[in-house]
């Protein structure tokens, strides 16, 4: 029994869904969909972990014993970084914080844009990074199609940016010497 348990642990492949500090029920609803869960399970993922924020829609928990995806959720956590690190696939809202934290860890990422936001500039970043093949971009409606059609091997690793060019210009403007 112990052996099987260890084997299970080592083969744990987590899909982590994060909505950030606000709420994004349409995303939680979209992942808590039997077709999406079946597709994820079919692709070899074993666990679905949802950070649901202030959302009111509660996903259906599942222990995953009956040959399907195990589902669990929480509202907020101070150790999101650890959760991200343990994930094999991240499905995230379009906030730049979550996007860059995930990309820096080199995790495959699907960004889901919240189309209900009033001033919706968020899609710009996700679309640009999707054009550059650093992530996949979807809406709650197209999530299933995106998961169906995604090829993780087509993703290009993101190289972290550099603030030094700005710092150099600021220093020069103020008359500080270059380093």
């Amino acid at each position, binding site marked *: 029994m112990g052996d099987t348990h260890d084997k299970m642990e080592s083969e744990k492949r987590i899909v982590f869904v994060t909505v950030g500090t606000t709420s994004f029920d349409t995303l939680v609803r979209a992942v808590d969909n039997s077709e999406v869960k079946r597709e994820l399970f079919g692709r070899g993922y074993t666990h679905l972990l949802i950070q649901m924020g202030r959302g009111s829609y509660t996903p259906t928990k599942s222990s995953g014993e009956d040959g399907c995806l195990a589902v669990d959720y929480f509202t907020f956590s101070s150790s999101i970084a650890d959760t991200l690190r343990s994930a094999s696939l991240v499905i995230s809202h379009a906030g*730049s*914080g979550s996007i*860059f934290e995930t990309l820096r860890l080199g995790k495959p990422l699907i960004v889901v844009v919240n189309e209900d936001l009033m001033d919706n500039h968020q899609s710009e970043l996700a679309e640009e990074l999707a054009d550059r093949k650093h992530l996949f971009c979807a809406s709650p409606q197209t999530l299933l199609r995106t998961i169906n059609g995604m090829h993780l091997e087509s993703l290009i690793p993101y190289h972290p*940016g550099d603030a030094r*060019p*700005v710092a150099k*210009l*600021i*220093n020069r403007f103020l008359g500080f010497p270059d380093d």
Partner: protein
Amino acid sequence: MSPQPLSTLIVLGSGGHTAEMLNLLSVLHTDRFTPRFYIAAATDNMSLQKARLFENSFIDKTVVENAQFMQIYRSREVGQSYLTSVGTTLMAIAHALWLMIKIRPQVILCNGPGTCVPLCVIAFFFKVVGIRWSSTFYVESIARVRRLSLSGLLLYKLCMADQFFVQWPQLQRKYPRAHYVGCLM
């Protein structure tokens, strides 16, 4: 001879602004930008906490004493209509004026949250009437790829930033006075 250290106002904001700003500060020589005044919206309790962590990360503890943390009323909440924004903006300007009289910074670093607009307007006013000469640097957020934020657009159009930086080439083509500096994150 190197110039004297400059008192610096750093405007923080939720939604990625603070992370980008701290990333920039980490490559600036903090001894040149001293003392540092951090300002965040009164409704934002995370940003100042992150700035405190950043300041506490310096090995030299004397540096920490050179940092102050302040809150400011917001001119506009995310999603607030432009019409009601007028009233709240007036409130924010009064509060910003009070803070700016107290701080009178020589350098202002901001990257997009709405709270930076009144502060930059007042800094500009101080310059015009000769109260304080300051240099304003604006770095548009990495989230803005095709269009400037409202704050960015205002500062750009009114020429209120001494240097205006964008992180995507598309924006630089649209706003030629901006400096393209690549992604900070």
